[in-house]
């Protein structure tokens, strides 16, 4: 096993044994996974431009030197190439996402798998060292003889992330494409974990992740992020002239979460976002925004399922099966009359044991519980607590069903307050 920091600063000798510089940087081709080191960049003196040696021209990498199989005259100046990953500049000491451990970590060192192919060494990134071992190597290399150092290292707790679980951060979008960074692995994480990670990053990297993720994942993660940071993420998308992207994400969010977020944005940003959203969703959000933030209406989501009271359990099941997507935390079906007036709630559990012919009206929970959209949120909390509700219907002044407050909203609200 070879480490990046052991190779950096090694003297480089050409085929005739003449020293031509020191290793200043390792460049890897990022198209292959895991990336393979393609070039060593050499520095000879401070102000000269770096030279580049392809790994095919290297004959050996040993503990104290790098030997080339070509003569020094055939080594040329480095030609910049955006698709190369620079291991010292882009990775060493930088932050990366540990996908498996679900956190942001700092790179202490990189380890390589070393192989000989066609009589030249081949180096592939094996893992990212984030532990004490790497830290001590960085601190003591050059101060303590190498064999001692290895001995000390073996006694320390090793901690490394295999390359396949590493997600790179790159804030420049063009370079991200060239380096083949997709953040696809992040989409597999739970939104709450992803949100924790995003909160630890610098704004630029945050922005980069929210531009790269698919909008559904981005929306889920954004809903879990701290409200103040939500605002700054959306503002940074809008500022970078990416209102359409921001609108897409907000559109994918649950309406109540989206409305809470919009309430903290400036008037101008809100109208820009609503303009870029499908009309129906925009109108819905516009209505939600009209409710005071600390009222039942401000707490509710409009996403709910209401059925006519005379429908049967069989009808309801057929309808639910045909829906493309169920509302978030769906646990109650509401009953309304032909003008939308609220008539009752049927907890989903009752469906399970009922026969298909049974009328929904006969299954409704007693007593009839509802809250006015204008009522203070305190009232909603009290009702949910007192009657142990999972979902509390919200009605307007005509007693028409306009939305629902689910118990998870109440839990978040109480946590925020307490």
């Amino acid at each position, binding site marked *: 096993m070879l480490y990046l920091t052991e190779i950096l600063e090694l003297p480089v000798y050409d085929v005739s044994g003449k020293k031509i510089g020191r290793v200043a940087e390792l460049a890897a081709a990022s198209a292959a996974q895991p990336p393979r080191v393609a070039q060593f960049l050499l520095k000879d003196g401070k102000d000269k431009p770096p030279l580049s040696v392809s790994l095919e021209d290297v004959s050996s990498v040993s503990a104290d030197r790098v030997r080339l199989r070509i003569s020094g005259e055939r080594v040329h100046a480095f030609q910049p190439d955006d698709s190369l990953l620079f291991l010292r500049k882009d990775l060493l*000491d930088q932050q990366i996402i540990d996908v498996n451990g679900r956190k942001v970590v700092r*790179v202490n060192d990189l380890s390589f798998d070393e192989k000989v192919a066609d009589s030249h060494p081949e180096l592939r990134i094996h893992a990212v060292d984030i532990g004490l071992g790497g830290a001590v190597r960085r*601190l003591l290399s050059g101060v303590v003889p190498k064999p001692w150092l290895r001995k000390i290292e073996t006694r320390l707790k090793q901690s490394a992330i295999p390359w396949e679980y590493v997600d790179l951060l790159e804030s420049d979008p063009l370079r991200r494409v060239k380096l083949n960074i997709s953040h696809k692995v992040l989409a597999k994480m739970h939104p709450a974990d992803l949100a924790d990670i995003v909160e630890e990053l*610098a704004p*630029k990297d945050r922005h980069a992740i929210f531009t790269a993720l698919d909008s559904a994942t981005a929306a889920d993660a954004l809903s879990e992020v701290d409200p103040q940071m939500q605002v700054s993420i959306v503002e940074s998308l809008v500022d970078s002239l990416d209102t359409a992207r921001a609108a897409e994400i907000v559109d994918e969010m649950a309406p109540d979460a989206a409305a809470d977020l919009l309430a903290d944005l400036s008037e101008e940003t809100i109208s820009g976002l609503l303009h870029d959203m499908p009309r129906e969703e925009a109108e819905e959000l516009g209505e939600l925004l009209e409710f005071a933030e600390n009222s039942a209406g401000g707490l509710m989501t409009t996403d709910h399922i209401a059925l006519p009271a005379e429908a049967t359990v069989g009808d309801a099941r057929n309808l639910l099966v045909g829906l493309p997507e169920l509302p978030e935390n769906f646990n109650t079906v509401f009953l309304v009359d032909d003008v939308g007036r609220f008539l009752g709630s049927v907890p989903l559990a009752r469906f399970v044991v009922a026969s298909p012919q049974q009328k929904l009206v006969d299954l409704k929970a007693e007593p009839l519980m509802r809250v006015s959209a204008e009522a203070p949120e305190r009232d909603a909390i009290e009702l949910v607590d007192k009657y142990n509700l999972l979902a509390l219907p919200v009605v307007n002044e005509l007693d028409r069903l306009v939305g629902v407050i689910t118990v998870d909203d109440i839990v978040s609200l109480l946590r925020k307050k307490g």
Partner: protein
Amino acid sequence: MRFLRRWKFRILIFFAVIGPGFITANVDNDAGGIYTYSLAGARYGYSLLWTLIPITIVLAVVQEMSARLGAVTGKGLADLIREEFGFRITFLMMVALTLANLANVMGEFAGVASSLQIFGISKYLSVPAVAVFVWLLVVRGTYKTVEKVFLVACSFYVCYIFSGIMARPDWLVAAESMFRPGLRLESGHLTMLVGVMGATVAPWMQFYLQSAIVEKGVERRHYAGSKLEVLVGCIASTLVAFFIVVACAATLYLNGRRDIADGADAALALRPLAGEYASALFALGLFNASVFAASILPLATAYSVCEGLGFEAGVNKKFREAPVFYWLYTSLIVLGAGLILIPGIPLVQVSYLSQVANGFLLPFVLIFMLLLINRADLMGEYTNSWGYNLVARATVAALVLLTLALVGLSLF
């Protein structure tokens, strides 16, 4: 409703920005600060007042640089040093910072001990009690609620302004001293210069302020507000320093009490305002300042070190998740408080010397800040102007020269 929301929005931005600079400026006048300014007035009368003008400029420039680095890069100072200068340099910097901050924590506990001694409470009781209180305050996550109490109690500093005026100082001499720089090649005098500098522009504050700016999410576009707030904080901070020096000069120095051995001595400066209650007033103010800083310093240190060296950090993490963070935080409090319990340790001197240690470390922190803030690839159009560079470089040069002169004086 819309109107209300807009208002809420505005107020949110205002508060998001009013925080860091103002708090940092207040924490700046901690036990070490109060004792150092008091000693400056008691030992040298008005003659050191001239330092406050350049120091205010330096403070404003340096704080603004910290805030700008934070707002533009979105990263803490320790993070940036690590990313741009590698592990070994970061490690050395963090060791130095931890040692200097340990001295500062000792200074705060010395403040606790000496303030409560005025009420006859033994340090063997007060120091451990406050150490436990501070530890719990932060680990239990109740710090944010108590912060406001600390901030309100900081209005105590206003007492120095009134006392300074009521002591009827010789304003003519004071004004003259403001503009007549005097330098004596004598180690006590030079040490005091370093101390006043370190008390006003403390290295740990730069780390703290930058992280606070990042954490509050102040970004480029809100940055103008932050800049103003930092400036107001700096002026408030040195205004207090000015009146502490004047109050001490007009009372202690003029009455021939040229040294401050304990809190009761320093409290005499408040006599013109508070009469016989001066001691009690001083004790309460010093106690608040000490506990305030003692609850920020160990935490800020643990955060900086873990940030820079790549350990997990945060009071919202469990001990198992962030062991280094919690060990470091706890050790700083235990050591800082424990060393103050050594019988006969000179409390005021400990507080004062911690500020001198700050002064020695400051140039190194400034060098890193200068190297970082002048890099176009990091800062874009927000690199330093030549005026800023001039002030910061001159400060580095002045502090290095002072340090060398002190080393020279102690050798020959």
